[in-house]
């Protein structure tokens, strides 16, 4: 009899975090992962730990998570690099909005301050000279997500979790799950399968949102901060068919990771030359010298997007013993620790660390 206190389906950064959190709480945990651990959206992500402040609920989850990420700052596998986030304005309207954004981040317990054009040029000389202002969030960092997911799974296993690697959930049962090799696991189920959520929980709407990234050869010192355009949220949280936004990250190796693009309703994972070109042209507008750097690799990934941009965290209505942690879109790495904490608060009946209502799956089924 394979009796569990929690069966975590999916070992991306979110599932791995939930499994780790549950094992740390003393639960008997099973983890089911058909592919590479951290091999889905986790492997394609930039690994930027960033608080987006345009939605108070997202900001609360991000703040909770960022505090918890501090525990990984010295973990070699995390490759944690506190480069800070630099938001840049390309016009006076964006610059005028900076004060309010600083205030929102400060109110949520973060640190941020505004920069004028001269200060911007001083800290990042390679940015376009016409950028008129910026906002620096110095505490934010970048990590290497796939190895963090592997670390979390190993840590959960060290605390007794059982990993069913290479196995797929054939079906959800009233008692738990049946795996593709016939193994039956009994217990509550947490589905953390990202873009694959509809296979097991079709009633929760979710769409894959394709993105492209390019990485360059090594150029140490070329850029010090992760730099995004202030209009990034319009691209990230808009629901346009396709959009691009400037987002470039210095890796600890000196490589630059250049994004970002968003496309709905495309299931072909191939790199789209035209979307790549459009994304890069946007990047050159903010950092003209990027054009001369050597790209060594480009790839794509799919972000699991919900209709309102917030993840599903909580019980699935009408399904006994079924929980979900999925739909984080582009913020799964940032918000994985907070998502795990909130889920375990709910599962164990603890007082939730933050208000769970904005993430309740029931919101889309009403």
């Amino acid at each position, binding site marked *: 009899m394979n009796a569990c206190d929690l069966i975590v389906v999916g070992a991306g950064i979110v599932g791995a975090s939930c499994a780790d959190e549950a094992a740390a709480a003393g639960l008997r945990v099973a983890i089911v992962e058909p592919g590479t651990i951290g091999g889905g959206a986790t492997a394609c992500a930039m690994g930027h730990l960033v608080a987006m402040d345009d939605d108070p609920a997202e900001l609360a989850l991000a703040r909770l998570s960022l505090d918890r990420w501090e525990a990984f700052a010295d973990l070699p596998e995390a490759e944690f690099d506190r480069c800070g986030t630099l938001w840049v304005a390309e016009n006076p309207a964006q610059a005028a909005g900076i004060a309010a954004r600083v205030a929102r981040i400060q109110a949520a317990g973060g640190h941020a301050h505004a920069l004028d054009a001269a200060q911007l040029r001083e800290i990042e000389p390679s940015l376009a000279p016409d950028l008129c202002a910026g906002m620096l969030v110095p505490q934010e960092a970048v990590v290497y997500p796939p190895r963090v997911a592997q670390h979390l799974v190993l840590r959960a296993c060290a605390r007794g979790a059982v990993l069913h690697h290479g196995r797929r959930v054939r079906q959800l049962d009233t008692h738990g799950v049946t795996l593709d090799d016939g193994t039956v696991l009994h217990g509550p189920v947490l589905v953390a399968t990202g873009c694959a959520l509809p296979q097991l929980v079709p009633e929760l709407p979710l769409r894959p949102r394709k993105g492209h990234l390019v990485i360059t050869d090594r150029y140490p010192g070329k850029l010090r901060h992760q730099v995004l355009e202030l209009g990034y949220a319009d691209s990230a949280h808009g629901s346009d068919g396709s959009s691009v936004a400037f987002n470039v990250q210095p890796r600890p190796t000196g490589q630059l990771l250049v994004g970002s693009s968003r496309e709905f309703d495309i299931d072909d994972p191939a790199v789209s030359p035209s979307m790549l070109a459009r994304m*890069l042209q946007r990047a050159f507008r903010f950092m003209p010298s990027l054009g001369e750097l*050597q790209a060594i*690799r480009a790839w794509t990934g799919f972000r699991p997007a919900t209709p309102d941009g917030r993840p599903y965290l909580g019980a699935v209505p009408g399904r006994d013993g079924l929980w979900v942690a999925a739909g984080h879109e582009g913020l799964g790495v940032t918000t994985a620790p907070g998502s795990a904490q909130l889920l375990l608060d709910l599962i164990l009946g603890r007082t939730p660390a933050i208000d769970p209502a904005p993430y309740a799956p029931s919101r889309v089924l009403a």
Partner: protein
Amino acid sequence: MIERCDVAVIGAGPAGLAAAHAAASHGARVILLDAQPRHGGQIWRHDVAHGTPPAAQAAIQALSGKVEWRAQHQVVAADGRRLLAETPDGAVEIDAGHVVIATGARELQLPFLNWTLPGVAGAGGLQALAKQGWPLAGKRVLVAGSGPLLLAAAATLRKHGAMVVGIHEQASAARVAAFAAQLWRWPARAWQAARLRVALAGVPYRCGSFVQAASGDTQLRGVELRDADGTRQVECDYLAIGYGLVPNVELAALLGCALDRSGTHARVHADDLLCTSVPGVYAAGEALGIAGLAAARIEGSMAGHAAADAVDAARALAPARIRERAFAGLLARHFALDPRLRTLATADTVVCRCEDVPLSALDDCPDTRSARLAARCGMGACQGRICGAALAELGRFPNDGPRRPPLFPARLATLAALPFRPTTEIEP
């Protein structure tokens, strides 16, 4: 800039030169591209001191006025049959009716102790450097590895003043003798072998002998050789080492062509007229599997005829092709690698030199993808071309090279130069 042509031939080695010539002979508008500044590919590479081989000169001159030659055009991306090439002057897009892939092969390197020391080079790599003027006069060079190309490399090195202290062929003397005994079936090759023997008079040629380690602090000082008599140290300034060739299939994969993965290394799959699984895309030469110069020239002609819709002319060459392809089997049989070569890399030996990944880092990785994600193996500038082939030989993972743009490191500006075609907007 966009250029249009009936046939684009990628690679200006023997296969590509023949393909361009054949296609142009039917009146097709042909563009021949190569990443190098001159025609010839690897085997016919121009030599700054000794010029271009006569056969290569003839093949190049035959194109004069008939084919548009685009030097220093590295194809880095493709969208259908629109190819994006990087040049010193920026990006060029080529819209081709048909494509001939003549991308040749690269050397197979196997990791061993200190194989990343400066002074250790590919046999073909050092040969290419010599032809480009790298000073080797008076340098002691040990040539090792496997296959007939070692002789060609040694001859070039010697011609440039290097002291070739020995050629060490891993295959046994019996196998090499059996190979030589079959060469009469390919008279041109027998003639070439005899010429190389003369050029290498006095240079020791040892069979059943391989390099098991290199030594030196910051620069190669010597190598440890192993043969039937045991191990011994030999001092040298350079080690030129290669274990044969691996087909360059990455462009074909990017274009969507099916690959034959039945062997250790993938090769492009093509039908009897050298059409790949993608209509309008042909392949010729080493990309179809290693068979040498003569096969490459015939296949180049076949693919060129076929790409110009001259099917009969292509078909007429099929028997000659089959004869030359038989040589590939002979090579593979007689120069099969000694299994001990696959055990030279120890836990600490670097296998991915772009990212400094030791072999031991791959112990928990079941496949290429996890090796990339967990250990960063194959994530550097070469995109796994070197370590991927080596790890396939070592029996770790299948060789799964790049198939996404950029195929080679390219300026971001090049990748941004593709014409922007808006994706269809989605109705809300």
